């Protein structure tokens, strides 16, 4: 059996439809969504309703949380004043567009979805706002997976798809008990753990404009990163027609994040 994992749809209906069609063509029935259904993109209601209609198990992303709890719920720093102002503008626009019913749906989403030894989160097991970057410290990465009790951790948020295998990890514990002269030492060898980032359906930033998601082939335990072309012009027209900043359309059509430079997603949320 195979299942698909999608993330960071960002109100991009054309991209979401294209990815779901790609999944359907392969006969995959099980899909998990890692959140950020809304934010920056022009069709938040349509995307939320599509996910609801397809009854796709979904965990809550940082944008989904912020649109419910208000901007102050996220203390994540933007990389620049320009990015912050654009982010706030997109937040206000999305807040005004989104129906109460769809807001209630976003509010109901869980932080994590678990299936046996697979854990699905938006950012990290600690927070929807934490970035698990592909080159983060190996010990910290292993800690995130191991402490959550998962073999494989599926995440999104960075908009860059990757598979990172964490092997050769061990924990050494030295204990000196009362009455004993020498401390006893134990060493635990950890089995391989894995972080899989699903990339982004609606706001790719992996060097191409194509939507990305991943397929987990459970029989072989292999991960396949998929890229899907979609009608970007349709989304760009919706951005302009909807009254969002026109520069968002330019950035999307060139494969840059809406409000940040493409080569600067390295800031780490301290929330």
């Amino acid at each position, binding site marked *: 059996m195979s299942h698909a994992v999608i993330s960071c749809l960002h109100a991009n209906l054309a991209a979401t439809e294209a990815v779901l069609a790609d999944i359907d063509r392969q006969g995959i029935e099980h899909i998990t969504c890692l959140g950020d259904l809304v934010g920056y993109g022009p069709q938040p209601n349509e995307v939320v309703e599509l996910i609801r209609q397809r009854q796709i198990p979904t965990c809550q992303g940082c944008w989904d949380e912020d649109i419910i709890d208000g901007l102050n719920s996220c203390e994540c720093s933007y990389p*620049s*004043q*320009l*990015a912050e102002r654009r982010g706030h503008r997109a937040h206000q626009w999305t807040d005004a567009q989104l129906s109460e019913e769809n807001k209630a749906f976003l509010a109901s989403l869980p932080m994590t979805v678990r299936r046996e030894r697979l854990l699905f989160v938006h950012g990290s097991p600690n927070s929807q706002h934490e970035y698990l970057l592909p080159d983060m410290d190996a010990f910290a990465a292993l800690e995130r997976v191991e402490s959550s009790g998962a073999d494989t951790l599926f995440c999104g948020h960075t908009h860059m798809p990757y598979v990172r295998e964490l092997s050769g990890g061990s924990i050494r514990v030295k204990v000196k008990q009362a009455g004993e002269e020498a401390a006893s030492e134990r060493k635990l060898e950890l089995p391989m753990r894995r972080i899989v980032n699903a990339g982004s359906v609606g706001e790719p930033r992996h060097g191409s404009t194509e939507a990305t998601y991943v397929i987990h082939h459970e029989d072989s335990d292999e991960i396949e990163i998929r890229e899907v072309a979609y009608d970007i012009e349709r989304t760009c027209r919706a951005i302009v027609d909807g009254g969002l*900043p026109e*520069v968002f359309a330019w*950035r999307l059509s060139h494969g840059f994040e809406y409000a940040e430079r493409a080569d600067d997603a390295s800031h780490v949320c301290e929330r």
Partner: protein
Amino acid sequence: MAQTWLISGPPGCGKTTWMLNTLKNHQGQRGYLRLPGISTAGLEQADDGGIDQTYLQDQITDLIDLSNTDQAPNDQEQQLNLVELTQFEPPSSSALEGVDSSVIQQLEALGLRLDRALHFGRDDDLPKDDTLEFSRLEAWSMPLERCVWDPNSLSSFWFELVNGAYGDVYRAKALMNLPDGRAFFCNWMVSQGGSQFLPLESVAPPDGRPKRCSMLSVQGKALDGGGIQATIADCLLSDEVLELHQEPQRQQAELTQAL
């Protein structure tokens, strides 16, 4: 006797850089003048707003401003005067007779007489790498005096500007102030691989908004001036935020003085 040379060429061909290097290497007194360019059909001249003058003056502190006839003599022995002129089409003749009569008149009014005229793309004494021919060119500029940029926002804005988010930009240059008192000469040309960000030598004190020349000048096609302006508004620091940057600088300066 002083030597006075006219250096002309299309936008972004490297006039200012060549003049800076030539003036820096000259042993005697040095003078500079920028003349307003001559627009022709469909080819608009950019409003430089003093960007080149300010940058050169910063790099060569004793540079004589030839537009100011009261400042200093312009005909000292071994003095080299360079006159910059943006001119799209090569002059009709390589000799001084090819220089436009309006240029001669402007120079005579300042007491200057040309000894030599060099044009980028024509004369072998000048580099040819970046000389482009334009068929149509719009110009857009925005004065930014006393404006201070959020540094990361400036980086994002410049990236968008030169990569086409606000129209087909062929040429962009600017003097931009940062909150630490530094200013940068930002320079980009479509034929070049990347942008130049050259710091000025002079640093403004952490005492409110800097008073030096600051300006953005862009040339290209289908320029979205409204879009540029809107983005710039999101990049500039308010008085309150600027003060947050400057207060620690003042405290640091006081501490350094006390030691």
